[in-house]
């Protein structure tokens, strides 16, 4: 579950549960974990709060997952696994989730984690006065949360909502200490108290966040590290230099061009995310000129995505024919594909009554990859007779301005989520909170609503295949590719996991001697 999750200065997209891979090497470790040592993580510092109730930035969650536990957790294969909830049952036709909680778990302030704490956490997120950014997503779904027994809690829903368990593996499932939250109020975000493997030590805004080992952590013998430090790096290039000299142990969000500097270097391991962010172009389909479907199709045919992939990703990205990457349970064959076909594009433009030389404005955010993409798009649209004017916009402003609908045509990047409802609903449903294209298709809304109302995986798979077909036909977004993304890590750091949301989990990491 998540809110607007901008990748801050770096990448404009949003993310919740994304698709990445467990690095094979970290799974195949034979060495025994070793206690002690510090892990230093290169960090895009746009963090504002350490209170998950108010968190919206992508970077914050790297830290949150260490300070807190989630109710469920997401496996490297998108499976939902137990964490603070040891098991669960779904009752009342998908409208009641009963969670049985781990016993003996304590918050860092010594108070007990129990069903009442879970209820407190949900009530706080749902409270209008608290004004949590998660409220707009949770409120329409959750009716109430009920303490059944000291360690059994039930979440009663208004409607079936199959992606609830996936949401509980993300921000909505991060459990804060009720005692500390009540006592500290507004200051809790700077003095976070959870049940997690590391306790909060210090936050020097813009410089570093320091966490220390929780000696009383409920998972016996863990964690292994004494300390985790998130050190701000101004950009990935500088991060790589710091990695090479050993000032940081980990840098991610790297492109194929970035890793050319460290590939093959001793002591550094490069790992690729299994599925990278979905890059696309989006526009406002309810306003001129993009309310003309012929123009949208013409542009889709004018783009040479293979070439964009070759130039910006060294050919290592995966061409996207829709928002769903291959290899997920809801992936489906591409029934509608807009091939690179300039002749067809010109013909569609002529049918649409758009004269050669017509000017179109495309936003050019300052992120280097987005800048590359828009220049190639501009070149390729120029080849079919459209004149593209690139309008530079600061990276920090561009997503907000897109949501405010002040930008009509822009590149965009999103990470995958653990459940198809995640991206499909927020981006394409007429009531989706991140629907900034003005797209409103009754057919699509019906398919997405139907998919929410059932827990039958086969039925959902068919519905999302249908939804993808509608979206690709209507083109509120033009899919480009799933990026090739990398993390570069010191060879000494072992046992960390890169989960599908593209947030590294360092909870069980250790430092080899």
């Amino acid at each position, binding site marked *: 579950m998540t809110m607007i999750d901008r990748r801050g200065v770096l990448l404009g997209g949003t993310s919740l549960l994304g698709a990445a891979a467990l690095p094979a090497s970290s799974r195949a470790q034979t060495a025994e974990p070793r206690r002690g040592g510090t892990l230093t993580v290169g960090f895009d510092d746009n963090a504002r709060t350490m209170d998950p109730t108010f968190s919206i930035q992508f970077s914050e969650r790297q830290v949150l997952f260490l300070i807190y536990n989630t109710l469920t957790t997401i496996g490297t294969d998108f499976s939902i696994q137990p964490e603070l909830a040891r098991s669960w049952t779904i009752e009342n036709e998908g409208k009641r989730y009963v969670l049985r909680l781990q016993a003996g778990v304590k918050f860092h302030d010594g108070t007990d984690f129990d069903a009442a704490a879970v209820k407190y956490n949900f009530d706080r997120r749902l409270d209008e006065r608290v004004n949590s950014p998660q409220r707009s997503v949770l409120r329409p779904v959750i009716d109430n949360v009920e303490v059944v027994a000291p360690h059994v809690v039930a979440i009663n829903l208004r409607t079936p909502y199959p992606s609830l368990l996936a949401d509980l593996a993300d921000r909505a499932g991060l459990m804060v200490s009720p005692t500390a939250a009540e006592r500290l109020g507004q200051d809790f975000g700077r003095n976070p108290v959870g049940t997690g493997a590391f306790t909060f030590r210090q936050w020097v805004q813009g410089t570093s966040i320091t966490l220390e080992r929780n000696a009383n952590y409920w998972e016996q013998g863990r964690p292994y590290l004494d300390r985790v430090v998130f050190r701000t790096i101004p*950009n990935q*290039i500088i991060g790589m230099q710091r990695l090479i000299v050993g000032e940081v142990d980990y840098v991610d969000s790297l492109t194929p*061009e970035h890793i*050319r*500097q460290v590939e093959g270097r001793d002591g550094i391991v490069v790992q690729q995310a299994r599925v990278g962010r979905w890059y696309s172009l989006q526009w406002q389909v309810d306003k001129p000129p993009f309310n003309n479907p012929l123009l949208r199709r013409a542009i889709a045919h004018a783009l040479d995505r293979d*070439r964009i992939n*070759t*130039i*910006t990703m*060294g050919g290592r990205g995966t061409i996207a024919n829709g928002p769903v990457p291959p290899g997920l349970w809801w992936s489906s064959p591409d029934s509608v594909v807009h091939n690179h076909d300039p002749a067809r594009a010109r013909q569609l433009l002529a049918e649409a009554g758009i004269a050669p030389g017509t000017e179109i404005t495309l936003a*050019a955010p*300052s992120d*280097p990859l987005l*800048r*590359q993409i*828009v*220049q*190639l798009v*501009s*070149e390729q649209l120029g080849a079919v007779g459209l004149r593209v*004017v*690139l*309008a*530079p916009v*600061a990276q920090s402003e561009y997503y907000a301005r897109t949501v405010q609908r002040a930008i009509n045509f822009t590149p965009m990047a999103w990470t995958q989520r653990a459940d198809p409802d995640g991206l499909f609903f927020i981006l394409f449903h007429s009531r989706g909170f991140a629907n900034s294209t003005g797209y409103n298709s009754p057919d699509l809304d019906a398919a997405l609503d139907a998919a929410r109302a059932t827990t039958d995986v086969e039925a959902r798979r068919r519905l999302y295949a249908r939804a993808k077909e509608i979206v690709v036909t209507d083109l509120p977004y033009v899919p480009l590719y799933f990026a090739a993304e990398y993390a570069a890590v010191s060879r000494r750091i072992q046992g960390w996991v890169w989960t599908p949301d593209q947030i590294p989990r360092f909870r069980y990491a250790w430092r080899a001697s």
Partner: protein
Amino acid sequence: MTARRFRLGLGVALVAIIALAGLLAPWIAPFDPNASGADVLSGATATHWMGTDDLGRDVYSRVLHGARISLLVGPLAALVTAIIGVPFGLLAGYARGRLNQFLVQVMDLFIALPNLVLALIITVMVGATLLNIVLVLGIVMWPEMARLVRGQVMSLRETPFIEAARSIGCKPSRILAFHIWPNIMRIVAAQMAIAVSAAIFTAASLGFLGLGLPPPAADWGSMVQSGFDYLSLNPLLSLAPGAAVALTVLGFYLVGRSVE
């Protein structure tokens, strides 16, 4: 004297080389400066003398075409500087009393503001187009010109031939236009050459700070900036346009100083 000759010669030679590069760019550049290519971030090779950038564009061709932009922005901005600064300086130098005080204070106010910061703020507000950048640079640089002209006028105003003109009843406008202006033209011309170099430098700084001409324009400052990310792969991405800026600025500056 010889040192001055040498400076002038060097300045003229640099300006001539850059001007030729800019004028002939469409014919001598081996590639279209904006055409992407699959050979991304290559080092210097026989085909790409300065390598390619992050979109596979030929850096050498882009540097040549960048000269066109700089040679347009620099002189036009200097012209704007002169159009605002010269009349202002003439008036401020010749006028006395309240008007003089007022004009001097306006000038001092503008001189007190740092050029680059002012240019940044205005560019953010009006947007970076060629015309806007020229106007912005002219607007932030005119006080230098006005101050110089005012100083010259003030010393000329007290000379006997101006006294004479005044005593036979010439109007101030006539004195300024026909007696003072011809005597300061040479200095204004020299200052314009220096203004060209300052304008090119400031435009490159704006580009470096992300406020240059929008992509894909081959703007030297923007090229230096975007090359920064790939310094370890191909340092020429930043060094080549950076050197071009340095040499052009030096050329115009030497010319201006020698004429003065």
